[in-house]
């Protein structure tokens, strides 16, 4: 399968093609959207994007881990992690393979 990596550049290009803004402004909007999502997550909020998925922040407790190389026990501090749950729409689009156009 031809595996390609899509980056910000392609997202901005898509925005540029879709709306009549300059390439620069399109790129700034992509950045600003990612920033707003990041800020909400940093505040501990869940971000729900309908028909795409939700990003949730989970609190993990402290646990004892091990350095796999030395076998030494080290405490892993309590921390917050991000979990992404894909929506049914995204799951089925990914499963159907071929990229379909938006309805």
């Amino acid at each position, binding site marked *: 399968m031809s*595996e390609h990596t899509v980056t910000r550049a392609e997202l901005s290009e898509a925005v540029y093609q879709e709306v009549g803004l300059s390439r620069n402004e*399109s790129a700034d909007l992509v950045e600003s959207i990612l920033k707003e999502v990041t800020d909400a997550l940093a505040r501990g909020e869940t971000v729900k994007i309908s028909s795409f998925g939700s990003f949730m922040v989970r609190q993990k407790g402290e646990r004892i881990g091990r350095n796999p190389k030395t076998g030494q026990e080290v405490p892993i501090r309590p921390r917050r992690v991000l979990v992404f749950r894909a929506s049914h729409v995204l799951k089925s689009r*990914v499963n159907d393979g071929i990229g*379909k156009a938006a309805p």
Partner: protein
Amino acid sequence: MTKSELILRIGELNPHLYQRDVERIVSTIFEEITTALARGDRVELRGFGAFSVKRREARVGRNPRTGASVSVARKSIPFFKTGKQLRDRLNGK
């Protein structure tokens, strides 16, 4: 935060844009990511995270209630790995 709240927020930050354009911009971004994943591509957004598709081989599963064997077809599932910068932000770094 929901998608419509995100749209409102981006609209507030960009008062020169029509709300319906902001809606299209936000939708285009998530639609692009979805289409890329449907093609089997990866989407890498440095500092935020990377979306990819993981394959799960066909396997024989069991109906947990009856214990009967059922064959589970091979499938692809979307996956997200948090970027380093975002992970650090969540932990106040």
